[in-house]
């Protein structure tokens, strides 16, 4: 009995090795000279699953619009190689090397800075260029020659948010971040720096992983007499916070960064007595052609609609994903090759005019961005309302 099972296991092993080996020689379409692979390194599960899926949607849409690229005068098919990094630093590393070994020319992602930082070393070692879509932590690109990014950075975003809070009369801010989460800890840190510089006071607290009970945090914010609630945490926790804040009558505006620009948040806030303000990369309606196109595309595919959370409200990360795909295509075109080294060599000089504004890589491979959009949730309609475009000099 035992031997038979062992034999079976061995057979399975051999088969799967074959499967893995053969998987690479995917059939080449008749019209194309070859295939070029773009890696999508995004979470589809874990804390950042929802955001990761929305970001992937933008990339997938872009791929459906432009599924081919011209390299050296020949037409190549663009294939997406999507891998789930599970929002987990440890799993992310192996997911990244899995992606690299499938022969991608460039990688896009990830939503969530921590995983990007973790996988950065893997990409660096392999010399595979990566383009961060919405990972805003400075550490992603700092000291890493292969990591580029098309979004703004936390020091910028934190300052914008602090300025906004200060200008709207807040003097004492309650800042909540999640233990072990680079993104929220980082953004809170920059917010606190900027807010203190303006003369404000802050109360900082952290909640542990898997925490669902935020009532005490809300109570703390009220008890300490804060007048703005800054909680740039993942949408999963955010939905719970908004719900409990409403139940306890928080009575101060809630402020967050780009992660909260999601229909998860508007869904949670709809019909409740809360005030939610976010900064983000893209304002829905900024490019009607893109908006309508992607909405129609999502409506046509129930799976995609499901990945977007069941409706067609656009998240900024989706638009950013869309832009990132085209930046990658530009790079491949400019390189005239699918080789990672060639793509990496031309990537710093690539420019692209996307739906979220112009992408020009500057210092460290970070895009030069000086504008963030401030949006407020209309709790009656459950939609975002444009407040202002903020920039700092």
């Amino acid at each position, binding site marked *: 009995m*035992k*031997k038979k*099972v*062992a034999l079976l*296991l061995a057979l*399975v*092993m051999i*088969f*799967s*090795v074959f*499967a*893995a*080996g053969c*998987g*690479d020689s995917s059939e080449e379409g008749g019209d194309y000279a070859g295939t070029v692979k773009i890696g999508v390194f995004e979470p*589809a*599960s874990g804390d950042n699953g929802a955001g990761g899926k929305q970001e992937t949607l933008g990339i997938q849409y872009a791929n459906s619009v432009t599924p081919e690229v011209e390299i050296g005068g020949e037409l190549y098919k663009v294939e997406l190689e*999507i*891998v*789930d990094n599970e929002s*987990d*630093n*440890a*799993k992310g*590393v*192996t997911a990244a*090397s*899995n992606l*690299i*070994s*499938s*022969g991608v020319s460039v990688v896009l992602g990830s939503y969530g800075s*921590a995983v990007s*930082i*973790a996988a950065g*070393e*893997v990409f660096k*070692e*392999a*010399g*595979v260029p990566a383009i961060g879509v919405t990972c805003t932590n*400075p*550490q992603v690109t*700092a*000291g890493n020659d292969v990591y580029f990014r098309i979004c703004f950075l936390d020091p910028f975003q934190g300052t914008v948010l602090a300025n906004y809070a200060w200008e709207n009369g807040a003097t004492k801010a309650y800042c909540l*971040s*999640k*233990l*072990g*989460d*680079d993104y929220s*800890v*980082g953004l809170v*840190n920059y917010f606190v720096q900027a807010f203190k510089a303006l003369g404000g006071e802050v109360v900082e607290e*952290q909640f*542990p*992983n898997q925490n669902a009970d935020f009532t005490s945090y809300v109570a703390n914010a009220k008890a300490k007499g804060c007048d703005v609630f800054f909680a740039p945490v993942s949408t999963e926790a955010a939905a719970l916070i908004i719900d409990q804040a409403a139940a306890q009558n928080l009575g101060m505006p809630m402020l967050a960064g780009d992660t909260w620009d999601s229909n998860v948040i508007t869904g949670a806030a709809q019909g409740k007595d809360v005030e939610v303000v976010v900064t983000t990369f893209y304002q829905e309606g900024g490019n009607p052609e893109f908006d309508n196109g992607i909405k129609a595309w999502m409506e046509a595919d129930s799976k995609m609609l499901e990945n977007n959370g069941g409706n067609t409200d656009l998240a900024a990360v989706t638009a950013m994903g869309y832009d990132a795909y085209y930046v990658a295509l530009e790079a491949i075109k400019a390189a005239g090759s699918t080789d*990672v080294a060639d793509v990496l060599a031309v990537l710093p000089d690539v420019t692209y005019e996307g739906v979220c504004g112009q992408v020009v890589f500057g210092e460290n491979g970070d895009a030069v961005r000086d504008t963030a959009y401030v949006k407020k949730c209309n709790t009656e309609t459950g939609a975002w309302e444009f407040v202002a475009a903020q920039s700092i000099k």
Partner: protein
Amino acid sequence: MTERINGSSNKRNMVLSFIALAALLVLVYVLDIVIKPTSSWNNLMTCLEKGTIYALVAVSMNLLNGFTGLFSLGQAGFMLIGAYAYAVFAIAPEDRTTVYQYYEGGGLIHFSLPHMLQDMMGGADAFGGAIGYYLGIILLMIFAGLLTAGIAFLIGIPVLRLKSDYLAIATLGFAEIIRSFFQWEGLGPVTNGSNVLRKFASYDSSIFPVLVAGVCIAFIVMLINSSYGRAFKSIRDDEIAAEAMGVNLFKHKELSFVISSFFAGVGGALLAMFQNNINASPFTSNMTYEILLIVVIGGIGSVTGSIIGSYLFIACSEWWLRGLDKGEFLGIEADFMTPGFRKVVFAVVIMGIVLFYSRGIMGTKEFSWDGLFNFFRTLPARIAGIPGKIKAKFSAKKHKKNTKKVKEAQ
């Protein structure tokens, strides 16, 4: 399991083992050079490295659970200590301001043992420098192990007086406490709080983790086969009888716990190097459960089993079954294969093993050359015997049916 004191075959087996090990190391070395990160075979290297590291941790857990009978669920916590103890002292001073970006002056600690020894022994380009670098890494790993062992010693004093399931839950609790402690902002200047530690010294050849884990596992095996190992096993089999035979329960449990934690700490340090970054959040009880399941798959009480189980587990979860998430597996394409399906299949397989095959792959047996030769020697006979066996089974079934019929008739 049994050590036979048999001069000639013993010597032959030793020679065979050395040859096999040397061949393995050469193979790893060659593979490491041949396989580029962008090659589709790089998955093999990833699984080899991670599998080796998990093998070490699984064997160390098996020392506790399988050989000493202590159902401890604190392994992830101990790995965390080891990983941090290593990483904190291996970040080059010039990188500290970037890594400890939120702390003034790049945190509290301002040296890196590997980089220091590298400079002392001739710098980055010299051969001596490389030796110094690796010497620093090894010393730091020993430090990581010792620190982990020390903390385990302290935890063990209260915890090891508890009985089976209480012990499990208490160690689980300690692992969680360790995790929140390492994430605490107050320790931030040392541990970087919630943020990732990275840019620390790491190995650059896959041969390093294989060597280190190999030496560690060899030590554990020798320990298990020593008088102390027998004392551990006696505690596992019958605490009261063991005590009546003069085995000091607490001392030996503590010993096993501390040694197991030492290697979990070393494993944590290796894992940190493998990942090139470390933070506390993935070291949850789920990680401990995964290691426990590896031990179960391999066979509780078998070192060989833990090693095989670890490679199988890692290869399945990181490589072979990934197709299940992408909608294409072994040429089968299906709509229900969406992200997460891989894990469901995996969980079903594991439940199957736990329920129907609870002895795991190896049971409590170990690999031995004699066993291997025996297997091949008797293989033809057994294959020849299969038809007969099937026949026998078939006729037995028939017989059962017939008797049933007869009974019914009566």
